[in-house]
């Protein structure tokens, strides 16, 4: 699967579609503040969707590793966690740039921003934890256990706490659903770009992760050959 090329072609097509039609599609003009910057929706928001999917794959393989400790499951788990964390860093930095022009300051202490920062720090600790252990067996096992904790911490930090208080993100009063976006409110034209954008960016993350997995498999083989 990871060496097949059809979904890589799909990734290229979807991303090119997003990066062209995303600028061309008619967007609603809500007020004079938002203007064209609503198009960031096709770039900033898919980072978080992609991160959630990639980190879910990561925790799936972490559980698989704990049930049946094959190193290959750990390769998948750690590669997807890395890409997911990179997506979250890109999401938080693009968010800060957007916020600077939309809310007046790059960091407003918005509950969603703070929650995302905490979630990222928890994932960074995953890499510190793994890096601190010499023994591969121990590293993989403890990494997998911590990965499960880190994934479930995403729910309070990104999904629950921001809903309990006022947020600058759309729908942030707690009663209007997801504080990141409200799917029912989205303009029809924007949906024709947004959903392909989410799929495209996520597939890009999957692609990078699988390359990392393949590299790790090759590296392992190389090391084994050398030791013999």
């Amino acid at each position: 699967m990871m060496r097949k090329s059809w979904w890589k072609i799909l990734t290229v097509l979807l991303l090119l579609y997003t990066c062209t039609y995303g600028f061309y599609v008619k967007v609603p003009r809500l007020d004079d503040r938002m203007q064209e910057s609503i198009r960031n929706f096709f770039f900033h928001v898919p980072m978080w969707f992609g991160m959630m999917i990639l980190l879910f794959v990561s925790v799936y393989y972490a559980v698989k590793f704990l049930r049946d400790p094959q190193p290959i499951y750990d390769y998948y788990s750690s590669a997807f966690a890395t890409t997911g964390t990179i997506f979250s860093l890109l999401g938080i930095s693009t968010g800060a740039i957007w916020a600077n022009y939309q809310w007046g300051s790059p960091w407003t202490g918005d509950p969603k921003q703070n929650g995302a920062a905490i979630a990222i720090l928890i994932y960074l600790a995953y890499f510190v934890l793994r890096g601190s252990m010499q023994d591969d067996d121990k590293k993989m096992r403890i990494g997998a256990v911590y990965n499960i904790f880190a994934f479930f911490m995403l729910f309070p930090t990104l999904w629950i706490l921001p809903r309990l208080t006022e947020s600058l993100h759309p729908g942030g009063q707690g009663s209007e659903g997801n504080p990141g976006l409200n799917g029912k409110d989205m303009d029809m034209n924007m949906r024709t770009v947004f959903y392909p954008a989410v799929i495209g960016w996520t597939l890009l993350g999957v692609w990078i992760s699988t390359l990392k997995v393949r590299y790790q498999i090759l590296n392992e083989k190389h090391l084994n050959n050398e030791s013999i």
Partner: protein
Amino acid sequence: MNQFKKVAWVLLLGFMHLAAFAQDATNNEAANDLMRSNGKIFLVMTIVVVLITGLLFYLISIDRKISKLEKK
């Protein structure tokens, strides 16, 4: 070296069209073309497209390298 050549080609091809636009500007001072409409948003689009194609080409080349190593 081969890889470097590929990247150089991507960059060259990516910038080639700019020469075409530059000529356009000298011929057409009124400049009501697509590239200058809506506050030059399509200029930003062109840059984003050049970036994303460059990065995708790089990704594809890494993919090929790994595939070659796997066949060995």
